[in-house]
């Protein structure tokens, strides 16, 4: 059996791009400084993921999806990493890169978001094939116990403040609610009918809208990578301006020890 790696030695074949120092740069088959020179950055970012172009109205909504979840609150777990990096006098890149990586969390961020996108696609396909949404929801709850994108760890029963804002933005841009977004709201109503008061949260909406624009769940996930980022530099900056170590200082007594009692190493 031939080793697959042998086929991949030599020049790396790519269709994504290359730089030609002193001359030009190619981005997905286009000259970055000629063909794409007027592209908005988020349009370029989305083009890099999908290879597709979007209308100015769609780009405006994609932009707003990030804007409305940019919270410079240093208590939030990902932002806290950026703030602590500033407090500990680490670099901005390290603090923000770590904070972005931390955003791939299981109780918020990209783990629920990719799961929500996956479920929306599966549920959409099944309901389009004629299955009742209640049946789909029941089976999903049996298999996974939770439907990600519904309920919220910090405010379970309240309306997610980001949702009315993005719906209003879509209205201003005359972007209609597509089938995935409509399904996302149908799921909220379906859960309520099943006695589950789990209001839709931003994780479902933030993927439903790009799904409606033709992104796949994996493309949605990549599109959302910078979505929390705008809130991070302010946390880093302000922590940098406080005295070193003065962001969330903890007294020794703020450690509540619950482990074994005192013991001696050599006695055992």
């Amino acid at each position, binding site marked *: 059996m031939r*080793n697959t790696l042998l086929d991949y030695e030599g020049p790396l074949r790519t269709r994504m791009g290359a730089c030609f120092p002193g001359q030009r740069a190619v981005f997905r088959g286009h*000259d970055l400084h000629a063909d794409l020179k007027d592209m908005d950055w988020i349009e370029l970012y989305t083009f890099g993921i999908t290879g597709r172009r979007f209308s100015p109205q769609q780009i405006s909504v994609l932009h707003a999806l990030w804007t409305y979840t940019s919270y410079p609150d240093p208590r939030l777990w990902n932002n806290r990493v950026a703030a602590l990096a500033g407090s500990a006098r680490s670099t901005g890149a390290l603090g923000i890169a770590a904070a972005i990586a931390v955003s791939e969390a299981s109780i918020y961020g990209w783990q629920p978001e990719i799961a929500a996108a996956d479920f929306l696609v599966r549920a959409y396909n099944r309901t389009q094939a004629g299955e009742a949404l209640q049946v789909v929801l029941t089976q999903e709850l049996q298999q996974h116990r939770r439907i990600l994108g519904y309920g919220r760890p910090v405010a379970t029963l309240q309306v997610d403040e980001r949702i009315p804002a993005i719906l209003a933005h879509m209205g201003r841009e005359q972007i209609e609610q597509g089938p995935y977004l409509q399904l996302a709201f149908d799921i909220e109503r379906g859960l309520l009918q099943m006695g589950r008061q789990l209001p839709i949260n931003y994780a479902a909406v933030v993927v439903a809208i790009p799904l409606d624009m033709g992104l796949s769940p994996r493309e949605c996930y990549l599109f959302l990578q910078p979505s929390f980022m705008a809130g991070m530099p302010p946390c880093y900056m302000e922590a940098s301006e406080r005295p070193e170590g003065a962001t969330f200082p903890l007294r020794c007594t703020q450690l509540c020890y619950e482990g074994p009692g005192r013991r001696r190493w050599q006695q055992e």
Partner: protein
Amino acid sequence: MSHAVNPNTIRSSIWEEEPQADNPFAAAACYCRGYDVYGDLLGKASYIEYMYLLFKGERPTPGAIAALEILAVALANPGPRDPSVHAAMAAGVGGSTAASVLMAAVAVGAGSYGGAREVFLALGAWENNGTELANWCSSLASPVPPTRLQVWPELEHPAGFDPYGKHCAAPVLRTLSLLADILPAGCLAWLQQERAALETAAGFPLAMTGVAAAALADLDFSPNEGEMLTLLLRLPGAAAHALEQGKQGFRLFPFFELDLENDPGPSCQKESK
């Protein structure tokens, strides 16, 4: 005197501190799992013993110490061809910060191809299959795919096996042999005994991640604990290689060639001028 409960406390079964009398933010004594770290443990406990204490809460047995010492050396440097070390060198050669070197190594070494996620998944397989060959053969023949999309890409080969191996590599065999000698009654010994059958079932030879997972299973490490320890243990080689390449400079480090299949050529730019 009654104390209001401070909501901003960190609960821990690992660490306790006694403050200095004149400074509530400085520790006069630190206790790890009940042991006085700087007043008793320091100078007596080895690094491996202390690490085990942190993870597992108790002192390791002599067998566990010896096994972890071997595992730590076996995993410490996967070598410059390994993607995680390559990533660290790419950071080091460009003069990136030391932390970014290790972040690069951790990020790339986290995956399911030879990385810590593979150890996590292999530990899960040990939890599910134990030392029952029939269970292993069944799960290797019919792997259960994830029930929904995850941030992790889907596994492309059985965890713990080498998708590009022709036969089990000598470093893997040697590590397995040494570890099985030390821990002769568990997963490692069974793996050594049934390796050929498992490799046939998997269609691939055993990999170092598979040995690491068996050792960690014998040491009662959960998949999450094993994943974390693997990430830690793989860092020394990445750090050393990054420092070496940083000293040598980027001109001596491969930049590789690209074959750009859809190059529009320089004409567009000339036309736009």
